[in-house]
């Protein structure tokens, strides 16, 4: 008996010592604003606790003291004007005392002006991924830009087939790398429906709305990896488009930009290379998993009524040009978006080739593949 009790207490203790049970409050964050917001939050929290303690304290005392067994004769009073004025005026004063510092902080948050030595990053919400454009870093004639897709494999979230990783649903293929101690303006918008870019550690939450650009300015004080989420219901995979920001020193940031540039230049070489069907299939399969399988499913069967099947689809089997056009332009009025910006020529050709060869499509259809130069030709208008 005593042994069992001990085990039980140990279990309780282990719950309470695990960090997750204690993860019950807002993070302080790593920006000046986030610290100020945290202080506001704690101040208003303690005010509400104090109000609660006083009101409920008096209420519970009265409930106990004036129970019928203790007080047979109820009083008859119905009003007391002095008291009523008092409990209108005092709350008003408390509210003003809270609203004033909140207004001051809000004004600071609304300082959206560009600053000397600062940078602008455009954030575009897509179903269901984020695109980042570094407006101050040019590669060729375009800004440095990439998409950040969830990398948690479906085996981890669907039916828990494998054990979940440490950063389950909070990991992406491309982190947003930014320098610390630099005023960054995130210019937030959307390509399709409304999303919301939420980074708790910066106290930033701004809706990404098609046709609007919302500004969130932040200066990160400490290097580190910060993770956030989409917080506006944007459809099926709303929970699967996380944000990962890696804040580094200025030097590391410059190095990262250099690497990014080189990688983009490498791409030209890859486009020219002679690709075999097997190489394209292998690369395409990986891309299919992160970019396409969410809707069209891993087995290419789609979801009836929402997402068409690719397995056995006439376009995928027999109409090479038609398929390239759909991927490049999207289908207006449907959830099929344009992948022209999201995939480079190689990845685009690879994923199309994959769908044309997988699920027996090659046996039932014409079995032709698409090579990167086809995409280049399409872009030139030669296909």
């Amino acid at each position, binding site marked *: 008996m005593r042994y069992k009790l001990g085990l039980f207490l140990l279990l309780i203790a282990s*719950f309470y010592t695990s960090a*997750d*049970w204690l993860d*019950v409050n*807002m*993070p302080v964050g790593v920006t000046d*604003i986030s610290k*100020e*917001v945290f202080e*506001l*939050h704690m101040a*208003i929290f303690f005010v509400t606790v104090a109000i609660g303690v006083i*009101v409920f304290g008096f*209420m519970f005392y*009265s*409930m106990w003291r004036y129970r*019928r067994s203790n*007080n047979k004769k*109820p*009083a*008859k*009073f*119905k*009003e*007391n004007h002095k008291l*009523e004025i008092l409990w*209108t005026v005092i709350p*008003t004063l408390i*509210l003003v005392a*809270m*609203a004033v510092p*909140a207004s001051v902080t*809000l004004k600071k948050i*609304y300082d959206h002006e560009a600053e000397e030595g600062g940078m602008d990053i455009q954030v575009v919400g897509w179903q269901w991924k984020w695109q980042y454009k570094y407006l101050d870093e040019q590669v060729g004639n375009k800004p440095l830009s990439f998409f950040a897709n969830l990398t948690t494999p479906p085996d981890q*979230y669907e039916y828990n087939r494998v054990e*979940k990783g440490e*950063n*389950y*649903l909070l990991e992406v293929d491309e982190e947003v790398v930014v320098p610390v101690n630099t005023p960054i303006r995130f210019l937030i918008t959307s390509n399709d*429906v*409304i999303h919301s870019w939420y980074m708790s550690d910066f*106290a930033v*939450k701004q*809706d990404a*709305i098609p*046709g*609007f650009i919302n*500004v969130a300015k932040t200066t990160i004080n400490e290097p580190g990896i910060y*993770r956030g*989420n989409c*917080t506006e*219901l944007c*459809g*099926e995979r*709303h*929970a*699967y488009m996380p944000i990962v920001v890696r804040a580094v020193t200025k030097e590391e940031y410059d190095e990262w930009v250099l690497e990014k540039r080189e990688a983009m230049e490498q791409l030209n070489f890859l486009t020219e290379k002679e690709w075999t069907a097997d190489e394209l299939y292998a690369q395409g399969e990986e891309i299919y998993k992160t970019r396409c399988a969410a809707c069209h499913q891993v087995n290419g069967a789609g979801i*009836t009524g929402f997402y068409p099947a690719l397995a056995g689809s006439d376009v995928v089997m027999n109409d090479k040009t038609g398929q390239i056009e759909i991927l490049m332009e999207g289908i207006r*009025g*449907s959830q099929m978006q344009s992948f022209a910006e999201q995939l480079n020529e190689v990845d685009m050709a690879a994923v199309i080739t994959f769908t044309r060869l997988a699920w027996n499509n090659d046996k039932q259809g014409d079995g032709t593949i698409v090579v990167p130069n086809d995409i280049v030709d399409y872009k030139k208008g030669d296909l």
Partner: protein
Amino acid sequence: MSAVIENHDHEHHGPQKGILRWLFTTNHKDIGTLYLWFSFIMFLTGGAMAMGIRAELFEPGLQLMDPIRYNQLVTMHGLIMIFGAVMPAFVGLANWLIPMQIGAPDMALPRMNNLSFWLLPSAFIILLSTAFMEGGLPGFGWTFYAPLSTNYPNIAYFVFAIHVMGISSIMGSINVIVTIMNMRAPGMTLMQMPLFVWSWLITAYLLIAVMPVLAGAVTMLLMDAYFGTSFFDAAGGGDPVLFQHVFWFFGHPEVYIMILPAFGITSHIISTFSRKPLFGQSSMVYAMVSIAVLSFVVWAHHMFTVGMPLAAELFFMWATMIIAIPTGVKVFNWVATIFKGSITYETPMLFAIAFVVLFTIGGLSGLMLAITPADFQYHDTYFVVAHFHYVLVPGAIFSIMAAVYYWLPKWTGNMYDEKMGKLHFWLSFVGVNVTFFPQHFVGLAGMPRRYADYALQFAEWNAVSSVGAFLFGLSQLLFLYIVIKTVFAGKKATAQVWDGAEGLEWTVDSPAPYHTFETPPKVNG
């Protein structure tokens, strides 16, 4: 009073037999019963959906459903609970109680009353029929933000259902206003009206004001989806934020539509079981009127993160905080009513006390949400989910349960089983807190709402919340059992029922005769 005796002459005017009684009835008590049972069925349906949601969220990962199904459950849970459970329950109570509380023989417009009830099941059949269609139920959240909703399948059914619900609500409200304005017993001035009647008078005006706005919003949505307009489509020059302004101009008063009648109910019950007149009857009325008026100028606090200009953010923050003042007055008045009373704790009183405490907790977290800079952290996280469930479940729904226990003896003539009632209360009370309190924690820690799946750091408290939800949900079967049992059997209730109860409804027999107050009672000021 004299009204009691006269009813005996009219017993041959009793209801028709069988199903026709319910289809064709124009009797306010029958229609009230229909509304209440409809609401109960919807409450259990929406509750089953909530348990589906909580089962999926019991641990991270997708266990029971894909995210499409999850979004459909979240959407339908919201729509069913708001338009199917809470609002019809209050309309049912209004039908039963308003004529009896003001000494009127029936509602002023009995045929319209019948129509406004029967439109409601029709609307839900239209809405739920999409479950059997390709594309399925709506899955864009009960707030149906454009442009997510405009691209959804079967949206025309959703729009039509909302229109029908809106017509039903507007007709019900017209009926309430006309009844209260014209059919009060001689001598009953407006200020003397029982607070439940007052709360419904204000609610009815709110409904008439905002239901057409909702109708406008869904119509614009329909035009965008099927007739090539671009009200909310940025690509066509439209404005997605406009949708939110229109929606929340309806939505915020709607929130108070779901709480004002609860204020009325709570005032009656607390006064009865404290055996003491309500403290500050007139300040209660003024507080409700102020809350109603303010509800029209705070809508954009639901939209602090859409990128409004600073001036708008400041205005909506300050305006929202002002609402705390009249709401505080109400809470203080209830506490002052308890003070120096002679209090007993029957089931209705337990629910009413829990209402005051838990609604106030929801109100205080609402105050935190009003602080715009902090709202940038709270917005669309589980903190908001915890907040509005605290004001809606132990708020609105506890008040409805309190009302059912309080007036059930008057409706059925039988006392409910007090022990069972108390058991139901304690199970619900524990269940509701275990469900929703931990949601404050995961919300502050950053868990977004409407997520089918979540990061590992939120796992522990979500599991606790799910256990609570199942406890709360299953306890409601006990409520169903208690109500059915009381309908058929139980200790006979007296006309007065509760020794501290005051008001005209307690002067007629229990159960209340089919027709009451055919000759108006005289009320002395």
